[in-house]
């Protein structure tokens, strides 16, 4: 029960005078999750310093590893790939276990949530029907040159054109669009500037725009559950609070949160507060 623990952990937050630094990626969905952690912790008396929207993994991970950031919402697969070259594990629990194993000294991997936010290849419904596409491998059917659109880092990451060529034997061109699968990517997809885009599975725009997610039969994208990475400063009490949040964060819940951000254009903090209230974390 979060309330009971709240009473015991509150003093530990105040006494030690420690402030937990919560970070997030430069991506609105990740920021909402970070807000969830932060507000849940604050509700139990912890002091929190937010360092939100601080860029890509390669920018912030050194800061986490050096202890400058204490708590960060991550994704299991991509994080594992960051620490281990070409990991054999693909599925959710395997990946999670491997991740716990791979985490460097001083970092704790907390419980993963059910929610996943996995990179996925999407195409328009029209395009999928034209070439009868359901899986990534079906892209081989396409007889016109393909261009993939995604953030520029995908170009050299295993899930980008290089991985696609290696795992599926499909060659595609690449166009960088620095909006993380956002509106511009969708627009480019619909206008035919690109045919293939990397969009997160939790992105509400997939449903909104009637896009087709190509099934990744070869496991190019690792399972990507939301998972908090914590430093030693996150004590047992705090860990429990965060684990409770993860437990409540279902796949649909994350999509709903994201939808509020894009459709209602609400700030991350407001979205997080509403959800936490609903889930009984705040009162």
């Amino acid at each position, binding site marked *: 029960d979060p309330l009971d623990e709240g009473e015991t952990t509150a003093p530990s937050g105040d006494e030690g005078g420690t402030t937990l630094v919560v970070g997030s990626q430069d991506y609105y969905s990740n920021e909402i999750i970070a807000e969830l952690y932060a507000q849940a912790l604050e509700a139990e008396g912890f002091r929190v310093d937010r360092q939100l929207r601080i860029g890509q993994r390669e920018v912030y991970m050194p*800061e986490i590893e050096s202890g400058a950031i204490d708590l960060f919402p991550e994704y299991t697969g991509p994080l594992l790939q960051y620490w281990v070259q070409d990991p054999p594990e693909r599925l959710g629990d395997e990946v999670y276990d491997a991740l716990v194993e791979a985490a460097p000294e001083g970092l704790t991997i907390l419980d993963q949530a059910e929610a996943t936010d996995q990179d996925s290849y999407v195409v328009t419904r029209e395009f999928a029907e034209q070439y009868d596409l359901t899986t990534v491998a079906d892209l081989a059917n396409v007889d016109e040159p393909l261009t993939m659109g995604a953030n520029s880092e995908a170009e050299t990451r295993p899930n980008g054109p290089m991985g696609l060529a290696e795992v599926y034997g499909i060659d595609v061109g690449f166009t960088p669009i620095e909006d993380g699968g956002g509106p511009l990517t969708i627009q480019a997809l619909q206008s035919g500037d690109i045919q293939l885009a990397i969009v997160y599975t939790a992105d509400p725009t997939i449903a909104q725009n009637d896009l087709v997610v190509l099934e990744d039969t070869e496991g190019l994208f690792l399972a990507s559950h939301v998972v908090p990475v914590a430093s030693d400063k996150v004590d047992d009490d705090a860990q429990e609070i965060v684990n409770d949040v993860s437990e409540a964060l279902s796949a649909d819940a994350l999509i709903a949160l994201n939808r509020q951000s894009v459709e209602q254009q*609400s700030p991350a903090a407001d979205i997080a507060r509403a959800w936490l209230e609903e889930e009984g974390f705040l009162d």
Partner: protein
Amino acid sequence: MNWLSQNLHIVGQLLVDHLLLSIPPILLSLAISVPLGRLAAGSPRWRTPLLTGTGLLYAIPSLSLFIIIPPVLGLPLRSPATMITALTVYGCALLVRGAADAFGSVPDEVRLAARATGHSRWAMFWRVELPLAGPVLLSSLRVVAVSTVSLVTVGAVIGIASLGTLFTDGFQRGIDASIWTGIVLTVAVAFLLDALCVVAARVAMPWQRVVSRA
């Protein structure tokens, strides 16, 4: 408007962040450029290396500068110090030449008259050269103020929060209002600082008013 009303306090915070990132580099580059500019104006031997050197700095793209500075100075990439240093470098790139021109614009007769009336070197700098360099210095400073405010936004690309964050965030989420707000506020901050420079200069240089009217 929906977006703006929901996000007022975030915008407010970013506005403050933006100011805190803009003002120090403007002041720092002024403080650094005035002595350098005086040196460049007064000594032909220093003039070329100083002006060429600072001129070349200006050719470095801002984004590159944000990236080059951390390893050179051992700063973390994503710190206000990086931003402030980079913008100070930019400010100096413009202002050293501006200050050199400003000191060069002090009429020789006035310098001569000041020497003839027994001004020491120190008195000469503070009482004669600096005030007379003021108007030209001001026009460079205004350019620096405005361009600094605008350049701060680029930091959002590497994760330094400012009004520029409204651009990257609005871009990802497809919220025009966020970008518009960012643009309008950036321009407003630029005009505000520009106006501050002008007002400060009017107070500091009362003779300018009559001279320009005359």
